[in-house]
């Protein structure tokens, strides 16, 4: 009897529980409205102390930290734009989802799956502060603090076997602190080649998930579990230093990196026209690459010769073989006065076949424009030209600007190449003049940059190499900024400050990139990058 009664009571409890849950469901949950309640927002000034205390942990970063900037204007912008964005995003999402749904309903014999409601709600994401870091590298780092406590409402209704199942996602909240890095910076719009996004902290995610009107997230323990799982998943993918990479531009195209080398041999010229009154002309050839800031190159001067033979070779680094031109100008050398132009011509690089030496006989012209004056015969010039594009694998090496390149062949083993890039100076000030250039001194060897006229914040961007037999661990390099006088006279040269850089760091690190304060200068700084390349 006792046993039967116990079994029966358990049995009864089971039925009773199911009935009770059903009754309770209809009593408490089923008739609750499924739509999202409209948010009533009172002005903050009217809030009581209790709700103010509740708000304290959410105070925006720009209030708490002086190095964060307020971007409420952007919040306002988003607020006005939000209804439009909402509609656009929802429509796009539906368009993407519909074919996928159609495919799957057929597969699983479901009658229909529909979005009953799809809206992101009335509350836009807000930015609660923005911080920008400036580093020495070619990159921009932004850290916005993003908080989206929205009231989206997505209801999916599935119908199968005469049953109706509703799944509702509502009140989504995402708080995140992303770091957006734009790098490398390139000189063509939009001025950066890639965007890297990573999260600095685990994001906070909260939402309601209603199945048939009952919020699953309200089951004790489940919410925590779901949240932890999401956090872990996201952290695995995007938590710093992991990141999401979005390419915007092709780096090699955007930054115009060298893609090949042009070898030119100026062989000779024939039948040049006489320019000097007495005797014959003294010709030399000037070679210049279009769209290049480098100075032109010259052959030697052949005295009193109208059929000169030079047989001199030159190399040019090519960045844009499709459009660049090589200009060849023949000049008449003069002891006094202006050197007179005897004729010129150009070689279009896209007319050359790669890796093939071409001997060109060029008529000398007055100028490249199609002009009547070109009819006159000015002589001819013979030139050998070879364009050698870099091989693919060579290109790849140079793409990763972060990594230090290998030293070229011929570097002594154990030693390496010390590579110095003088980027820019800031706040330089001379007593009499400020036409600064940089003088590098290393092991008695001296190298100089170009001087820039009247500029307190010059940009040189020049590169230098020093070959070392052994790593210069205990040595130093002196970097001095000197101003050159505009004309010869008193105060001809003036030091604007110097700094001595110990090279131990660069040898161990392979690369350093820093701005140094100059000694003997008020506020002057200089930005120098050093690389230690070993084979």
């Amino acid at each position: 009897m006792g046993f039967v009664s116990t079994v029966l009571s358990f049995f009864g409890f089971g039925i009773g529980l199911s009935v009770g849950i059903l009754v309770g469901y209809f009593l408490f949950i089923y008739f609750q409205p499924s739509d999202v309640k409209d948010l009533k927002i009172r002005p903050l000034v009217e809030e009581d102390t209790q709700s103010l205390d509740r708000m304290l942990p959410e105070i925006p970063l720009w209030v708490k930290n002086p190095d964060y900037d307020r971007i409420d204007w952007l919040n306002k912008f988003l607020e006005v734009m939000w209804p439009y964005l909402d509609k656009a995003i929802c429509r796009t999402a539906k368009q993407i989802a519909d074919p996928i749904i159609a495919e799957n309903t057929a597969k699983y014999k479901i009658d229909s799956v529909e979005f009953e409601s799809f809206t992101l709600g009335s509350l836009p994401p807000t930015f609660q502060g923005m911080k920008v870091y400036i580093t020495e590298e070619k990159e921009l780092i932004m850290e916005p603090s993003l908080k989206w406590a929205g009231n989206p409402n997505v209801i999916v209704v599935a119908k199968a076997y005469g049953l109706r199942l509703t799944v509702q996602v509502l009140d989504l909240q995402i708080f995140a602190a992303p770091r957006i890095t734009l790098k490398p910076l390139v000189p063509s719009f939009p001025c950066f080649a890639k965007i890297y996004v990573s999260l600095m902290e685990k994001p906070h995610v909260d939402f309601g998930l209603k199945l048939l009107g009952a919020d699953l997230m309200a089951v004790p323990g489940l919410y925590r579990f779901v949240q932890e799982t999401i956090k872990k998943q996201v952290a695995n993918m995007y938590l710093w230093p992991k990141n999401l990479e979005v390419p915007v531009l092709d780096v090699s195209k955007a930054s115009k990196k060298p893609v090949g080398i042009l070898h030119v041999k100026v062989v000779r010229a024939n039948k040049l026209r006489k320019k000097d009154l007495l005797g014959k002309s003294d010709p030399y050839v000037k070679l210049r690459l279009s769209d290049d800031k480098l100075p032109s190159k010259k052959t030697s001067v052949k005295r009193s010769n109208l059929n000169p033979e030079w047989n001199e070779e030159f190399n040019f680094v090519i960045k844009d073989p499709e459009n660049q031109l090589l200009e060849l100008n023949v000049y008449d050398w003069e002891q006094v006065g202006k050197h007179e132009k005897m004729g010129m011509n150009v070689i279009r690089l896209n007319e050359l076949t790669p890796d093939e030496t071409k001997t060109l006989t060029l008529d000398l012209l007055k100028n490249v424009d199609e002009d009547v004056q070109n009819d006159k015969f000015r002589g001819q010039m013979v030139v050998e030209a070879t364009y050698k594009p870099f091989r693919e694998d060579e290109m790849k090496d140079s793409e990763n600007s972060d990594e230090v390149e290998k030293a070229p062949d011929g570097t002594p083993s154990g030693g390496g190449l010390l590579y110095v890039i003088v980027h820019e100076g800031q706040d330089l000030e001379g007593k009499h003049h400020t036409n600064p250039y940089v003088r590098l001194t290393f092991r008695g060897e001296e190298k100089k940059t170009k001087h820039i006229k009247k500029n307190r914040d010059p940009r040189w961007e020049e590169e230098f190499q020093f070959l070392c037999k052994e790593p210069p661990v205990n040595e130093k390099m002196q970097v001095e900024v000197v101003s050159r006088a505009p004309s010869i006279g008193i105060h001809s040269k003036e030091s604007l400050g110097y700094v001595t850089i110990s090279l131990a760091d660069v040898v161990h690190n392979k690369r350093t990139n820093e701005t140094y304060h100059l000694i003997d200068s008020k506020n002057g700084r200089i930005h120098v990058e050093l690389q230690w390349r070993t084979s």
Partner: protein
Amino acid sequence: MGLISGLVMGALVGIALMAGWSRMMTRRSTKRVAKAADVKLLGSLSRDDLKKLCGDNYPEWVSFPAFEQVKWMNKMLGKLWPYIADAATLVIKDTVEPLLDDYRPPGITSLKFSKLSLGTVPPKIEGIRVQSLKKGQITMDIDFRWGGDLSIILAVEALVASLPIQLKDLQVFTVIRVIFQLSEEIPCISAVVVALLAEPKPRIDYTLKAVGGSLTAIPGLSDMIDDTVSSIVTDMLEWPHRIVVPLGGVDVDTSDLELKPQGKLTITIVKANSLKNQELVGKSDPYVVLYVRPMFKVKTKVVDDNLSPVWNETFEMLAEDKETQSVIFEVYDEDKIQQDKRMGTAKLALNELEPEVSKEIELNLLSSLDTLKVKDKKDRGSLTIKVLYHPFTKEEQVAALEEEKRIIEERRKMKEAGLIGSTMDALGGAASFVGSGVGMVGTGIGAGVGMVGSGLGAGVGMVGSGLGAVGGGLSKAGRFMGKSVTGQFSSSKKNGSPTPVQGDGNAN
């Protein structure tokens, strides 16, 4: 018995469970909603809110200026500037050089940039203000300052000689108004309207130099450039005038955004009272020049030897934006030998007028409209006028728009035929090439705006496609301005303004 009690117990536990769940649901839901409300509130804090929130520990680094500061954006601009400058140089060269060639006047064989550098000093954004003045539009005001070391050398080759002209030390201080027209298609912005706010007055200063020569070699050249620049700024860029850039991808009707005549002004210049004499012998010979837009100036007859002249002449004028525009009256003394002297000027703001009510107004003449510059309190007399403002209906508006187009077209034709501007024949060639040069300057400014826009876009993480569109709009803007320049010369008057002109067209 056991079954019944089990059933009851089970049902009770079941109901209790559901009740508990439901309570939990409501609690969590209210918590989330409360948090959403908090975050929303904290997204737009005001000074009072913050005071209440922080109590005595109010952070000192927080300030609430009318234009929100954007230090982070300036930092970014500073870092990006060398790259932006390089990129913009290429864009400007590519878009403006063919344009210059299009508008190259006869007599000049080549017009090219021999040097174009935007310098090393980045522009500064002093602040940003976002408003929503109209439904479906976002109005963004950018306080823009650029004291740059830009240098542009324009190589001009004429038949006789070549003359490189250099523009440097450009300084632009202005508030740029950008209006975003919203749409429900991604990227959610269908058009962008760019203008310079009239208040505070845009200031655009620069130095012009002829390389290896002097600008004074061609008399009046420098003045003409200045005059053209200021006319372009006031008539093309200054609010309510604007540039409309439709963004690619979305096909929308932007005609609503374009500036259209809103109403008609009927102004009768009745008389002037007790003008001050400007001539040594006899009395002044006054006449009045009046305009709403400097492009459409009209003038009265000259009344000889009279300091209280009566004209009773009536003019009709169009008004595009009653809220911000005003009629400018300038009284001149005609001088047969020298340049005409200005005897005084006055301004009548249109928003003081009531529609369809004729009104007689007496205006006091001032030496300059810029209140900062008025030194003397001397009485220069007054001007009596009668004004009637008539707001257009839809049909009248369309008709007026057509009429305006026709007038501009006619003027251009006349200019081409050489009817107007024959008095300045000797200068003609030089003048029009300078005009195109100025068109280029304008585009430079446009490019600046575009850049700011793009910087923004990048920073905000909005859709980058806007960039290309701005670039495209840039060329459009350039073309637009270039056109206006050629039309401008027929009406522009010489007034000896010094080289750094103010953008207000009345610099004297």
